């Protein structure tokens, strides 16, 4: 895989097509898990990364074998297998995290991010690309989830990663309604920043193009004069 393609996939997964903030997929775990504290967010993110990478790997390997008509059930069974593995692993080694995440660990199966990547990327892209895509989509999900979790934990509980910082807290942000508010504000702020950066980059590219054109013109005219 070329470096340029790798960069593109990485940027797509983490920023340009950030699953939670740009595509607004996988909303259920985002709303629920961000209220459980930043550590649970990291755990959830790790589980999602694992499932995304391996389901993308297997689906990409089998992309020419799976018949088109029954592809969705096949994808779901592959994803469910890896979710079962993660769930059993966490139950055995990370009991506390398993108990906190509870039902949302099993529900990774029906997380739209994973099925979405299987359907729109892994099912018609080479293996290495698909694995990278899964990895960076997962990282994008984890980053936004953890950021939201940190904001909600600091504001709602006055704590960070389970460590009490101060006694000031706005309980609203730890409640259910606070989840919707935080998510809405995050999407709005992210989109404003994204659009501003994009406009600036476009501007810069346009200016560069104009400058190159002028240089070329100047060079041409001097050549003409010399001739």
């Amino acid at each position, binding site marked *: 895989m070329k470096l340029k393609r790798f960069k593109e996939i990485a940027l797509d997964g983490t920023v340009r097509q950030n699953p939670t903030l740009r595509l607004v997929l996988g909303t259920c775990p985002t*709303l*629920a898990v961000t209220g459980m504290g930043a550590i649970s967010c990291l755990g959830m993110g790790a589980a999602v990364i694992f499932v995304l990478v391996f389901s993308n790997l297997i689906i990409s390997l089998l992309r020419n074998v799976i018949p088109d008509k029954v592809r969705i059930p096949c994808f779901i069974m592959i994803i469910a297998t890896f*979710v079962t593995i993660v769930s059993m692993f966490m139950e055995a080694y990370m009991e506390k995290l398993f108990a906190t995440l509870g039902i949302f660990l099993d529900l990774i199966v*029906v997380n739209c991010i994973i099925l979405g990547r299987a359907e729109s990327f892994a099912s018609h892209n080479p293996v290495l690309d698909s694995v990278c895509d899964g990895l960076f989509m997962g990282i994008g999900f984890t980053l936004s989830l953890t950021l939201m979790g940190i904001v909600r934990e600091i504001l709602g509980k006055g704590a960070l990663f389970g460590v009490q910082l101060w006694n000031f807290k706005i309980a609203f942000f730890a409640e259910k*309604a606070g989840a919707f508010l935080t998510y*809405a504000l995050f*999407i709005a702020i992210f989109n404003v920043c994204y659009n501003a950066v994009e406009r600036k980059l476009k501007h810069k590219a346009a200016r560069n193009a104009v400058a190159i054109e002028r240089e070329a013109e100047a060079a041409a005219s001097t050549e003409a004069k010399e001739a």
Partner: protein
Amino acid sequence: MDVFAIIISALFVDNFVLSQFLGICPFLGVSKKVNSALGMGIAVTAVMVITCVVCYPIYTFLLAPMGLQYLRILVFILVIASLVQILEMVLKRFSPGLYSAMGIYLPLVTTNCAILGIANIVTETVKDASKAGYVFSDVFFGNLVNVNMAKGYGEAVLSGLFYGLGFTLAIVLLAGLRQKADKLHVPKPLKGFPITMLLACFMAMAFYLFTTIV
């Protein structure tokens, strides 16, 4: 738990969308118009009831006594997907009108966390069935006709129905709010998902008050 408590908690207190954050995707995605929201709500309710009717016995009498609880995710998702497929075919054959009204929502329902969530929630109570002394041979030879089981089954189906209705209530209310909000002047960054989520935030605040009932 008595019936009334199940109904109130499923509809309002533990509302699937606003309190448990399950089924958010259709809640945000299919709530532009009241009519389509109602269709989606009914489809979800129907599939939820069927899921409870089928998954509860499968878990209680097959998976739990044999110690196969870890297979639940695979089994549930397979059962739900095939049930939705069958329901779609039956509707298409016997009631084309209902199919054209509801049919487009059915495939969406399959991969919906609300459905897998309800299957998990209603079977949560029987996770330790093997500890309670049921073994597979008991089930196999029909020794398990016991009042508690019947009660658990009734509760499971009832909660499936009312969690589904709670979902319908929330999605229809949100669709009504969104139709009104379309006429408002919304700042550009808040257009689309953010404003919908803010509306959901106000609804969650209102539903939060129901927790004081129980």
